[in-house]
């Protein structure tokens, strides 16, 4: 056995060594256990309420049923409303955020811009120090009156300092000559930015855009603080309310229509409906996210 391994090694990485097989086995177990929560929730959403009550959650439905989904779809008004809010906030937020951050990042990358250093520090400092929750909360509610407005879900997250600095780095790596040439040809700053710098930065913009989208879609924090009107509740906040009102489910609007409510399975079905878009986005755009992590990357 050992001689075969020894003679094979010089030939390179063709055959798997026993060690590699073992590692594959360990990683496979690890990966499956990471997916287990997902299986558990999806399975629960397809299990009949009775089976959950008597057998608990299991990795495969002990008694298959789509009653939970039928129940959710029977009165989808809050589902549609919340999805609408989330989609609106995510779309408007991402477009505005990427635009504002790209503009700022671009200016900070300009070597002949005198205030570059000072303004970079102005951006950076907000990552190091903050006033905390109380002043922000009072500002938002008492002075800006943004409570229960759609803007409360958008404005506070528009400028993420770290993303600005990443964009700044990316813009500063564009060949200076191209931008100079555009200006010498008489293009103004705005035109140079939109016609030349922005298109050249598409990979970085796409990556930052993905992260921004994900941030807005997943945000429940701003909703928790500033929204108590169900009509403005994004998906994540709605899910939170369903989860936190376990003991008083009947008071929850979604469950109010009376009758025997399949609470346990409905809760999981709603969660699955919210997880769906995230998993889909992950499958299709994973490489952008991975690139985002290594963006600006390791240098030799």
């Amino acid at each position, binding site marked *: 056995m050992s001689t075969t391994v020894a003679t094979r090694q010089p030939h390179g990485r063709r055959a798997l060594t026993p060690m590699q097989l073992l590692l594959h086995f360990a*990683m496979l177990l690890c990966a499956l256990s990471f997916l287990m929560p997902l299986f*558990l929730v999806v399975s629960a959403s397809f299990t009949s309420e009775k089976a959950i009550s008597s057998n608990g959650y299991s990795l495969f439905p002990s008694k298959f049923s789509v009653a939970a989904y039928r129940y959710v779809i029977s009165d989808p008004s809050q589902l549609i409303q919340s999805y609408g809010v989330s989609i609106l906030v995510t779309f408007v937020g991402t477009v505005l955020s990427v635009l504002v951050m790209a503009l700022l990042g671009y200016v900070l990358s300009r070597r002949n811009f005198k205030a570059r250093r000072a303004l970079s520090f102005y951006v950076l400092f907000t990552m*190091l120090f903050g006033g905390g929750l*109380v002043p922000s909360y009072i500002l938002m509610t008492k002075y800006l009156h943004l409570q229960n407005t759609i803007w409360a879900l958008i*404005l506070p997250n528009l400028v*993420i300092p770290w993303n600005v600095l990443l964009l700044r780095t990316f813009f500063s790596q564009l060949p200076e000559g191209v931008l100079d040439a555009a200006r010498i040809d008489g293009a103004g700053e705005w035109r140079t930015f939109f016609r030349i710098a922005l298109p050249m930065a598409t990979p970085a913009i796409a990556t930052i855009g993905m992260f921004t989208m994900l941030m807005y879609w997943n945000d429940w924090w701003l909703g928790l603080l500033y929204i108590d009107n169900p009509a403005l509740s994004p998906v994540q906040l709605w*899910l939170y309310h369903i989860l936190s009102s376990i003991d008083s489910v009947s008071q929850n609007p979604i469950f109010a229509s009376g009758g025997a409510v399949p609470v*346990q399975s409905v809760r999981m079905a709603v969660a699955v409906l919210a997880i769906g878009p995230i998993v889909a986005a992950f499958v299709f755009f994973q490489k952008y996210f991975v690139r985002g992590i290594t963006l600006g*990357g390791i240098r030799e």
Partner: protein
Amino acid sequence: MLESNARHGPAGATAVEVTAEPVLADDAAPAESSPRRAVRARRRGSRGSGVSLWLMALPGLALLFVFAYIPMAGIVIAFQSYSAVGGVFASPWVGLQNFAYLFSTSDAWRITFNTVFMNSLFIAANLVLALTIAIVLNELRGRWAWLSKFYQSVLFLPHFFSYVIVAYFALAFLDPQTGLLNKVLGFFGAAPVEWYSTPGAWPVILTVVSVWKGVGFWVIVYTAGILAISPELYEAAEVDRASKWQQVRHITLPSLTPLVILNVLLSVGGIFRADFGLFYLVTNNSATIYSTTDVIDTYVFRSLVNLGDIGMSSAAGVYQSIVGFVLILIANWLVRRRHADQALF
């Protein structure tokens, strides 16, 4: 907390992302030796475009001013007896009374300990497991590489779920009646556990959740680090008949050390900021387990939103901001001593 939210945003602040160029790098002086005419043209150009550049930067700068700098000034609230009527401008000053009150309670010690202790557990567990997995995945390149990619993807997936979703996942395991964990315990003849009122279990549970959600991110960071190691080192080691384990010990780990140190320092710089969603949502905000799960961020939130105690809440918030700031300064100073180009500032 808004800031900490932003810091923990999807992009996350990590070492690998640390920009290729120090944030406050000195500007390279524009080519002095170029012909005078070109210099003059550039000067005229930049003077004319200065206004445009300021206009382009303005929206971002203004938003930061409103949502980051004004709240910084709002720290004064911690030194007032704040009333909704008086607001920030007319509430009476009380000096350090809010702080005196906060630190006279046992809460202050509890939330400080829990924040630092739990964050330490998370940092250590994530680091050890991410390094291990990254090294293992690297050994599995070559044949069946797609499986290796698959592992990496699966480990990264939880990074994309919000803590609300994670709370649902946790409930599927921990629900006392229907959860999987009690079912497994029952299978082995053990008594079911009321997880949401058993404080002792939560340091472990939260560490598991933190690793589940975070480790895939760090695996990518360290995989990128490993890929950046020169292959010649390994080829030389093969020639010298070094075992795989010797290669890991004498090439991979030493090569990753600077990256590890950098990440740990940055994480320690943020050790005073807890991940609010993890401690508030995954624990179901269950009051019976506060002894191990109450952290500064949840305390600030509860004091403000549930109790309306603005004095306590703002004092705890300022305490967190200031200690957190000092820790980040120290971390950055330590990073800069080793690798000036990797420092944040």
